[in-house]
């Protein structure tokens, strides 16, 4: 039996312990904000937080989240939207929007670890998150704005 917390709610799971967390949150919990993009940790669309760290849920087996606190895009803003989500909205970042939950989760981790990231910091932290529509320029601007506002 695997016990974990997702967005503050306790859950237990006794299915295939090799099942990636992605499919547990999407198919079992119905939290579909976390997206399937590649299944190989190559695109970042499935990014969630495990104990505060950004992880690729598409390759993270349930056996590895025993006792973990998981936060998905649905649980990000405690009271309304997180400042990073607000910055995304203000800069009209999304086009199709499919990758943006993953981008936002990755950006939140970056800003938690680095209050005022440089261009280089941003490129390093966001390197694993693909946006096929090509919104990178707005992602960079939104991260910087969120950093300024939180400062």
């Amino acid at each position, binding site marked *: 039996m695997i016990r974990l917390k997702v967005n503050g709610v306790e859950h237990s799971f006794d*299915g*295939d312990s090799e*099942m*990636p967390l992605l*499919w547990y949150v*999407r*198919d*079992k919990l*119905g*939290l*579909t*904000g*976390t*997206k*399937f*993009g*590649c*299944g*190989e940790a*190559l*695109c970042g*669309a499935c990014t969630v937080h495990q104990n505060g760290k950004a992880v690729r849920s598409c390759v993270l087996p349930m056996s590895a989240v025993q006792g973990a606190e998981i936060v*998905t*895009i*649905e649980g*990000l*803003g405690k009271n309304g*939207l997180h400042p990073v*989500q607000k910055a*995304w*909205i203000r800069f*009209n*970042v*999304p*086009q*199709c*929007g*499919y*990758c*943006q*939950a993953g981008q*936002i989760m990755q950006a939140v981790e970056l800003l938690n670890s680095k209050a005022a990231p440089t*261009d280089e910091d*941003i*490129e390093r932290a*966001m*390197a*694993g*998150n*693909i*946006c*096929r*529509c*090509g*919104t*990178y*320029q*707005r*992602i*960079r601007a939104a991260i910087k704005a969120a950093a300024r506002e939180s400062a």
Partner: protein
Amino acid sequence: MNTNSIENVSRRRFLKGAFSAGALVLGVRFLPQVLWAAVREPLYGPDVKDAVFNPNLFVGIEPNGTVIIVAHRSEMGTGIRTSLPRVLADELDADWTRVKLQQGIGDARYGSQNTDGSHSIREFFDVMREMGGAARLMLVRAAAQRWKVSPDECETRLSTVVHAASGRKLGYGELARAAAKLPVPKKQELQFKPSSKWRYIGKSAPMYDLAGICSGKPLYGIDTSLDGMVYASIEHPPVLGGKVKSYDDGEARRVAGVRRTVQIPPFKPPYAFQALGGVAVIADNTWAAFQGRSKLKIEWDNGPNASYNSTEYRKMLEETARKPGKVVRNDGDVEAAFAKGGKIVEAAYYTPHVAHAPMEPPNAVADYREGKVTAWAPTQNPQAVQDAVAGALGIKKENVICHVTLLGGAFGRKSMPDYVAEAALLSKEVGRPVKVTWRREDDIKFDYFHSVAAMYMKAALGENGRPSAWLQRSVFPSLMSTFDANTMYGAPLEVGMGWNDIPYDIPNLRVENGPAKAHVRIGWLRSVANIYHAYAVQSFSDELAHVAQRDPVEYLLDLIGPPRIIDLKSIGYWNYNGNTEQYPIDTSRLRRVVEMAASQAGWGKRKLGKGSGMGIAAHRSFLTYVATVVEVEVNDKGELKIPRVDTVVDAGLVVSPDVVRNQFEGAAVFGTSVTRTGEITATNGVIDQSNFHNYPVARIADAPYYTKVTLVESNAPPAGVGEPGVPPFVPALCNAVYAATGKRIRELPLSKHNLKA
């Protein structure tokens, strides 16, 4: 303007559930120009043309004042779901904060819903205004009747009718019931707002779904969930047209959560939008379906396309490009001009297949019940879903309902609904709602690929290095092969994409197209044949500028020649189905974007460091004029960075400026992927690539650091914006690489070239 006649359908049941009783609902009949009609019609069932004369676009006003606007085009990131309804809301004088959008299901009565070809605004702008204007006039008349005043004394302001003289006001909601009883005004009676009074058109606004997207709401096809739904993953034949010889699912069925397997029969040629065939694993969740699939043992009969090898195919294309082809434009006498001499320059260019790879892989949910199918799909073309599902199941199109979700990227892939047909076939077989999810590997290997292409160019340079003669020949497997396996030549719409419409002022000009047979599924990908055609024409132009020892911008303007209208009626040029009076090829507009882009980039003015360079390209596609300057830096190791892109766009009237800028920023990134790493190859008919490790697309550090997009202020009729950013970007980047390194890129992608000095 289209031939429109609006009718009051308040008491009809077409939009059952969308509007409550007492709502004022307007429909409109009109005849759209169906962009890809020639492609689609022969597929299944009745001729689409017969069906489009039915009511289609709708606005409704609820008694509580909520204005409901039906978005009938698909949202894949271009903002169309927001932009078109805002056009209607503007003419209706509606309060946007009280507008609710309703996504239209697939229905021929809407006219074409195929959201591709960058034509949504162009085709529906006037219709939307008429819809809004007619509804507004009916509300005004209803208020005037109630107040017993002349409608001329009334005006509207944000969902309210106002009688200024007496200070009386009535909200649209309060007037909806009375307005619904009135006859629809004739078009001649409508008075449209002058553009100076536009409240929404031309003003930036957030996309309707922005907050939902940023907070992870279930908006996409892949987020669909139904009670009793099971999950499917399908092992397709590795080679197009292959068949299952035999298979053993014993191990697959032992995977926990796997229910059963289903064999899907192979398609009957042409493949069109049919399911590819193969073996599906049905399970209780997506993961179990994937796991079960990996345990299948299948023996395949690969069929004739197993002969497809990209290396040999390329040789064939390039050899064909050296031989005379079908002439698709012939001005003057090219051979005579070549015979006169001058400096002869030749070049051959090659571009491989490219995959769409939208971030949301193909997926669909279908629920078959008693001869009827309800489907939920991220699709650009819900009516093609109806056709494909009906064809697959042998049921009537009317018995297929297609709900359109948001699309997690598409780029043309989701115009082709094979994956929805799969879900419907499986639902019928298992008697439950089925969700089909393609893995990324399926998406890359079984795409409808962008055509591989070879281009041969030849010019004779005379005085000042100006071409006295120009010959260009392209060879590529046509996307028409999707519908007719025997297709050998490019369709008019393909050779009409930046090829026979080359806007150059050259007296002797011949344009040709050579034959090629397709061995994989070919589809349209963001800007389609414009990509390889613009790449060849704009690269060759840059090469000639250097041979002539002239500045590439000045030389490009010389090639375009004086401001004029180019008339190509005699060659049957398709002009993206745009009226040539409204949308001529106007070289003054092309010249202007070139001049503006060069000036914005500081062309010839800004000092660039060692290893840096700028390249320019200009192209008209989807009736829009674009010029792009790309700046690159190549370091000692040959690593490439793109610090800046300057793009100037003349798309005529622009409805949503910020959304359009986002499209062109994104087109630069899409073009970066095509240019730097875009390559799909086949070995013995099997696609060699499978996921983002061997089919890389641009990541944040690969993409342009900053793309500045300038929109030319224009009163010209609106044109396309989703696609036209890609074609000039590709050659502009290659020309910049040449400026920085002296290496001429005659073959894509860049990853095949060593850029080290």
